[in-house]
């Protein structure tokens, strides 16, 4: 791969495509792209395209936490994205991505799971979050987490009513009005920031070229309050503790700054309502 100019990284904070070390590529987000889902979003970050679809189904709550619903994550790396994913090649990466998502959401504050409960111990909403990689050009984790946050914002869960008849048999009734839905509070949903260590500096949103030059990266997921929900070191190299602390600080700063513009964009898109121009998949 063509070499990244290290002196320009150190001195001028300039990368091959002209970005600074902490700049993201051009990002496009669109929600409500798939009509069969309860919530969906498509994110393009440079040439990386990720599509997330969320379907809500009624299931049984987990035995240890009877008053909560839960989320299930599946990531599919299909051969559409790159030829390396042909057959079972993409399965390992898919498992790694979904395991990371479970870790990112493995805390009480990201999503209020108690709001997903219908009847404690018997029925709850299970949100199946399916992530599809359409195109891969580096930085899958970041794009994926933004797409999930947008899709969760877009999710409309139908309101259900539990009625009990004389024999005590419970029945679930869906309301007749298709627009009578519950929305999720996605304020605390974290976003992932991946920092790649190249020589002595670290860069945010690395392209595939830059990734090839780095031996180790740090993945950090940050909420809008600056709380860290997941940290992982990726790659085959080792990191100096000081680098880790520096990268954590940068990751927290960049991650925290992502949330406000994202929420603004999502709310603006929603407020356009029917007048919104749908871009779809061809652009």
């Amino acid at each position, binding site marked *: 791969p063509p070499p990244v100019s290290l002196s320009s990284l150190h001195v001028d904070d300039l990368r091959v495509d002209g970005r600074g070390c902490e700049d993201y590529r051009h990002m496009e987000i669109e929600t409500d792209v798939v009509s069969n889902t309860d919530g969906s979003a498509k994110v393009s970050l440079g040439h990386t395209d990720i599509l997330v679809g969320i379907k809500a189904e009624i299931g049984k709550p987990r035995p240890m936490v009877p008053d909560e619903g839960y989320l299930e994550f599946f990531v599919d790396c299909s051969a559409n994205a790159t030829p390396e994913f042909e057959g079972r090649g993409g399965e390992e990466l898919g498992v790694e991505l979904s395991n990371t998502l479970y870790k990112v959401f493995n805390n009480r504050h990201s999503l209020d799971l108690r709001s997903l409960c219908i009847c404690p111990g018997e029925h709850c909403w299970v949100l199946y979050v399916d992530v599809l990689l359409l195109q891969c050009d580096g930085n899958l984790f970041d794009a994926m987490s933004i797409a999930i946050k947008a899709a969760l914002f877009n999710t409309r869960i139908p309101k259900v009513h539990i009625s009990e008849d004389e024999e005590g048999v419970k029945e679930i009734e869906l309301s007749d009005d298709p627009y009578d839905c519950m929305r999720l509070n996605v304020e605390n949903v974290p976003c992932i920031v991946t920092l790649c260590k190249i020589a002595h500096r670290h860069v945010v949103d690395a392209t595939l070229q830059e990734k090839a030059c780095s031996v180790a990266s740090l993945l950090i997921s940050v909420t809008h309050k600056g709380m860290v*929900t997941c940290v992982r070191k990726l790659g085959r190299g080792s990191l100096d503790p000081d680098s*880790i602390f520096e990268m954590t600080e940068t990751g927290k700063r960049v991650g925290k700054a992502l949330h406000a513009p994202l929420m603004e964009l999502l709310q603006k898109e929603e407020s356009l309502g029917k007048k919104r121009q749908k871009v779809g998949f061809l652009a």
Partner: protein
Amino acid sequence: MPVDTKRVRGPDESQSPLVFLPPTAQTCEVLRRPGDRGKGDVRPLFARCGLVSQAKGSAYIEAGNTKIMCSVYGPRETERKDDTDMKSGRLVCDVRLAPFSCQKRGAWIQGSEERDLSLALSESMQPGVCLHRYPRSQIEVNVMVLENDGGVLAHAVTCASMALADAGIEMYDVVLGCALRQDGDSCLVDPDFSEERGSWQAGYGENQGRVTVALLPNFNQVSGLHADGEMREDTLTAAVRTCMDGCHKLYPVVQQAILRAVKRKAPPPEK
């Protein structure tokens, strides 16, 4: 779906009786750690090499009730040959949790948690092994967790390094692992299973998390870092530092165990 009315079927899904415990028994406040351990103390480690006679190298570790064994096979010829394999070797790590190891019975098919642990172990071990000395070969590291009493990834890392050293695989340094549980403002080093899981009520508190660090002690390089939960950044930084100290505390025990194994395999000449 046709229902079989002639036979009495058991329940489709069976559950552990622990789920039915009254809530007070589940949310026990851990004020004092069992065994009078301080918050910053690691559990005493029992480590031995050379357990499995068929393997090139093996190791067994016991920390509290966590029992982990590891065997190393290799270097063997690789099955797949691509460009990267021509220049350096491959490290293939496989972590298995025995079905009886956790409170809830596990399945024999490798689940997502085991795949996650295998990937984490492989990422933590790779910086420590001199893979460029074994081109076109692969080294297999198989870790079997016999009993899970907390800190599985951390102790698996330590166990795997000892097994690799016992197998005579060239390494830059031993890789040691240490786990930590952050509970509000206090941190518990080397948590056992109940401390690691915490009570589900405590999960609603602030600053809850688990951190595992894999360290190369002589170079002071971090080869693996895994954290989850929800913590402030400064708490996380302090937790990583504490884990690194915990790793340094383990080093003498591991060194002694490896030396003992080497002396047994190649005894010093009689004077």
